[in-house]
């Protein structure tokens, strides 16, 4: 059923690209509710993306081609990541093209292009944002890799689809090493997606922003692509987390019923994860920029602890 596999694969990609802004909208909605504000529509991210596509692009005079190319590359990398992550089914054609380590590399590619584009204009904000983004990145990346090592030691592979299959074949049990790494992964997710406590997605305060500083010079369609890519990144991270820590329900065969069930379950998981994310963001305060390394070092140590527990206890 190769053709069927490709159809499922394409549908998965389209679904991820389409669902990502909705997921972001859901997180924003939950956060507004928790903070006693009247919530924006769940489709609000879509509306702003659409609005941005219709606007005229304004580009700084000192911009080079790299600046205009970067949004497409970042978006492309995020879509590729969505294709690689087994979010609804495991036996798909493109998922074999990259294992979890390559996935981390892909996310790093997007980050490097984003930072380079921010440096391209040559303003204080852009370079400051690039420097901070790379700082967060170089601390988060090893932590994420150690998380992946722990999971791959448990499953004897680094291929995400196989991890999903092997983990979901086990019955549910609280695995101490996976518990540690799940905490570490959540912290990396917060940092990498510019959420509180590391960065505030709702701020444009010059001295504290990281992600928004990178995008400051972007407008119109380029900004739309960058925003869409950021939403997709959050969606991808959530799906990576599902694949490693709550893989139950992801379809491991071609049965259509399984696929439908898996899509429904993915929606439920996303709803839960979005609400939890909003809760974390509401309960914590933003850290100073130089506390962020400590936050990520904690994540790294949690992951290493998970690794040691895994090697000591074998569980």
């Amino acid at each position, binding site marked *: 059923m190769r053709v069927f596999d490709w159809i499922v694969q394409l549908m998965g990609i389209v679904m991820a690209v389409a669902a990502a802004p909705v997921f972001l909208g859901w997180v924003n909605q939950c956060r507004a509710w928790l903070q006693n504000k009247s919530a924006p529509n769940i489709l609000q991210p879509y509306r702003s993306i659409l609005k941005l*596509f*219709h606007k*005229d*692009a*304004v580009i*700084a*005079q*000192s911009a*080079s081609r790299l600046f205009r190319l970067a949004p*497409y590359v970042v*978006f*492309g*990398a995020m*879509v*590729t990541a969505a294709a690689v992550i087994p979010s609804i089914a495991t036996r798909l054609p493109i998922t074999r*093209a*990259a*294992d979890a*380590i*390559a996935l981390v*590399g*892909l996310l*790093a*590619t997007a*980050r*490097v292009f984003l*930072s*380079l584009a921010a*440096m*391209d*204009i*040559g*303003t*204080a*904000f852009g*370079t400051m944002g*690039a*420097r901070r983004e*790379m*700082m967060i*990145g*170089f601390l988060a*990346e*090893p932590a994420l*890799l150690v998380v992946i090592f722990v999971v*791959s030691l448990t499953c004897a*592979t*680094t*291929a995400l689809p*196989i991890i999903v299959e092997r983990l979901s074949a086990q019955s549910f049990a609280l695995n101490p090493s996976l518990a540690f790494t799940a905490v570490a992964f959540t912290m990396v997710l917060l940092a990498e997606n510019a959420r509180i406590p590391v960065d505030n997605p709702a701020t444009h305060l*010059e001295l504290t922003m990281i992600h928004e500083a990178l995008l*400051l*010079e972007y407008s119109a*369609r380029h900004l739309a692509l960058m925003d869409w890519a950021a939403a997709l990144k959050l969606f991808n991270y959530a799906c990576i987390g599902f694949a490693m820590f709550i893989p139950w329900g992801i379809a491991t065969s071609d049965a259509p019923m399984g696929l439908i069930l898996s899509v429904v379950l993915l929606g439920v998981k996303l709803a839960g994860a979005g609400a939890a994310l909003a809760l974390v963001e509401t309960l914590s305060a933003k850290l100073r920029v130089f506390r962020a*390394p400590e936050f990520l070092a904690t994540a*790294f140590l949690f*992951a290493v602890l998970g*690794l040691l527990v895994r*090697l*000591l206890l074998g569980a």
Partner: protein
Amino acid sequence: MLCLLLLTAWCMAGLAGLARPLSIAFVGRTLFPLGAVFGAALALVAAISLTHPTEQLVLPIGLPDLPVHLRLDGLSGVFLILLGATATGISIFAAGYFRQGEGTAPGLICLQYHLFLASMGFVLLADDAYAFMLAWETMALSSYFLVTTQHRIPEIRKAGFLYLVMAHLGAIAILLSFGILQGGSWHFTFDAMRAAHLGPNGATIAFCLALIGFGAKAGLVPLHVWLPEAHPAAPSPVSALMSGIMLETALYGMIRVSFDLLGLPLWWWGLLPLLLGLFSALYGVVFAAAQTDMKRLLAYSSIENIGVMFTGLGLAIVFAGVGMHAAAALTLIAVMYHAINHAFMKSLLFLGTGAVLHATGERNLGHLGGLIHRMPWVAWLTLIGVLAIAGLPPLNGFVSEWLLLQSFLFAYKVPHPFINMLLPLGAALLALAAALAGYVMVKFFGVIFLGQPRESALQQARDAGFAERFGLAWLAIGCMLLGFFPTTVIALFSIVTQQLGLGGLPTSNAPWWLLLPIPERESSYAPLVFFAVIAIVVVLAILNVRFFYHQRIRKGAAWDCGFGGLNSRMQDTAEGFGQPIRHLFQPLFAMVRELPGPFDRRPRYRLEIGDRIWQALYQPLGPLVRRVADKVAWLQQGRIATYLLYSFVTLLVLLALML
């Protein structure tokens, strides 16, 4: 032995430079391109030889009864490919690079350059200790003269001297190592060393001496001090040769000694290169992040990459020592892959800095910026090298990193308690070094090529000439091919591991585009698919924007918060970009800082970053040597009668010993 012929041809091309030593046109237009052709031919011949059995040759030259033994096996072949293919790109670039007024006359540079290349080739072919040391010393000397090309500058003479001293200390260690390896047979061919039976103590000492000797040449911390001085001092093509190829010959030597001459190594030896390598990797990359000179930054990045290779080598030794041959083969393949990647990436970057240096006359990152507008060719080709060395897929740097991390995942199977738990932590540190490399490379590219020019003189910068572009493009294409076709490259490397007795990788029925090193783990990576998907999405997104929306673009000033007066001095400097790293890794640096007070009329900011290892290990050596020399000077009375007495006593002692 076509390789031998080509190496001799390199020597000839060098000698031909002496015919018209002052003619840039002759040397640049004829000899360097000729050298490039020889390089390409060498790579081709070496690649073909990999599929043939090992060749041996005895040349009756040199001292009587001590002929030169040469041998071309898989390991030599792989490194000869590296040498030939990289040298081709560098030589093409050099054809356009060397100009009048570089210090040494062009003809002489041509001789030293080609002698350097040929001696590296002979190091790889040598099959006895004499030939090896002869080639090794020729390599050190010719590169010393190349480093001191601009010998009128005192700092460069000083850097050259430091390099020479370290090179010779290393050479002594290698010589002593060979002395132990012959194992009492007093035959110094490598065949005799393979056959010699050393006890575990002798073998350990030989291994440690080799590690010191080759580590000094490779720039392993703490023997790295010469590297950040000598590599920036040399002209850029020479820096590229030294960083890209010469460091790898040291790795070759280490592989040769530990896996071939010593037979199968003891497992715990591996921990030494592993720890030193990990430390070097982190140390190098942290220092690279703090540099403000673009070539010094690259030199420190070389220390990092050498560290990564030695980490892998150490891991391979551990695996081989405990009998996990398949894992050892995978690790060794990752190491060789990283070596060839580093040769291409680092040469590309050094040549890129060379082009910038020629266009602007500036090496200090604080005076560069915005060159992507003036030098688009150099900028975009360098960007490929930058992405590759930052370890980003689908380029080549990522493949070797991926393989190395995969092999680290076997480490928990090592049958020694504690070690099997600590080894996977090495992977975490390696991941940290790789992520930091990304930081360093964003700084390198961003500060040089992006942003606004920090000096008005940069507006006059011209893009590189045709030969230079061609050389850069050669290396950039090499980076891409090595990244896109990993299975082909790995098939070549597994010939080497088979010859070294580790066996190749397990066969799998994976298609050619899918890298699947260990079939039962099912960890796979397909760079071409990767690249294709990204490319398709990018094209679709661009077409989508074109057909459904509009393409209107307005140019405007950058956002200045409404205050106005935005200028290029407000960008992050190289110091500023390195600041988070300096802050986080403060204990590693010996920093001297002068900060201006709030009421200074002439505020001055000064920051000097020193190397603690240099201060702690090397600086006390100078006074020590002087004190010892003062004591020894007592022997030098300056009277001929005393010296005759010395000779007489020596003769008496020798006679007594003989009888």
